[in-house]
């Protein structure tokens, strides 16, 4: 740990990316990282509120939530989880390449991360389209029937409660998809910066903090997948 530190201090005076209000590159890096974590904490609060509301309604209407979850396709959800985890791996490898000063590898891993991120959004798009075709979008007239699940004989009387789960589904996955879009935009910016040759072993802060954001969005999905797709799945006929 101490060796890279002294290497940084050596070059600190020369870096054009050191802002004048920081003592050295290390202090600048730690401040930026801390700032990103603070931003992510506000994001935890943002998604936390939705997870809290979800928990309250799920405990009120457990049967309706279980039966309504049958209208979601866990195969899509699992595939998307896998895609997102691969994108997190490529993102971590991009940050690693940036730290080691491997510029070609950095650009390759950034492009791969973007490809997997876009793949996630495409799969999500197919899913939303399927819900629309199946008439499962809440609040639209004619879309209120969630009753065709033979595993849950009482489902017909839950049509209003069933809409609540689909409201949560669209809000939570929608905000998550919005974060993914922002993430792909960030990756585009970082890739353009990388192509201009801005990053070095001495300065890679933007790569690092964009990576933190990307991993955070991954974590949100890690919770969304079991909470939305897999409720009541035990009764599903495999």
């Amino acid at each position: 740990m101490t060796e890279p530190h002294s290497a940084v201090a050596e070059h600190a005076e020369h870096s054009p990316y050191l802002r004048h209000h920081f003592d050295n590159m290390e202090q600048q890096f730690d401040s930026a990282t801390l700032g990103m974590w603070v931003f992510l904490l506000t994001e935890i609060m943002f998604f936390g509120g939705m997870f809290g509301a979800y928990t309250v309604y799920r405990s009120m209407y457990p049967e309706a939530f279980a039966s309504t979850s049958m209208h979601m396709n866990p195969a899509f959800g699992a595939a998307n989880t896998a895609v997102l985890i691969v994108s997190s791996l490529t993102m971590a490898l991009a940050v690693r390449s940036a730290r080691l000063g491997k510029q070609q590898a950095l650009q390759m891993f950034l492009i791969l991360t973007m490809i997997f991120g876009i793949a996630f959004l495409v799969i999500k798009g197919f899913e939303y389209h399927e819900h629309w075709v199946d008439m499962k979008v809440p609040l639209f007239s004619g879309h209120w029937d969630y009753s065709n699940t033979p595993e849950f004989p009482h489902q017909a009387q839950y049509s209003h409660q069933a809409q609540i789960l689909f409201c949560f589904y669209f809000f939570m996955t929608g905000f998550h998809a919005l974060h993914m879009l922002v993430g792909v935009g960030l990756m585009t910016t970082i890739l353009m910066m990388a192509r201009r040759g801005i990053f070095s072993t001495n300065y890679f802060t933007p790569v690092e903090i964009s990576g933190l954001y990307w991993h955070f969005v991954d974590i949100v999905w890690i919770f969304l997948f079991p909470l939305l797709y897999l409720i009541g799945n035990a009764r599903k006929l495999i």
Partner: protein
Amino acid sequence: MHSVPSVRTYVIVWATLTFFTFATYYIAQIDLGQWNIVIALLIAFFKMSLVIFFFMNLKAESPLTKLFAAGGFFWMILLLGQFFVDYISRDWMPGGKMW
């Protein structure tokens, strides 16, 4: 600025995350009653820890950053705790109404 983890470490973490993704998918097909949600959440928290400690490299961050990360979860527990106490205790007043 910190020690750089090896590619091997990242690949092992990725493989573990993928394994648990499919584990959670298949375990959900088995009817375990109340335990389904408990196991699903335990796996989710475990996967979250892997991402935070390895991919986000929290273990190599400064103590202040670690404190902030822990603080975030503390505030989250406060937020959700108060939130649930409100809903759980609403029926405790006579007639089931607080106002």
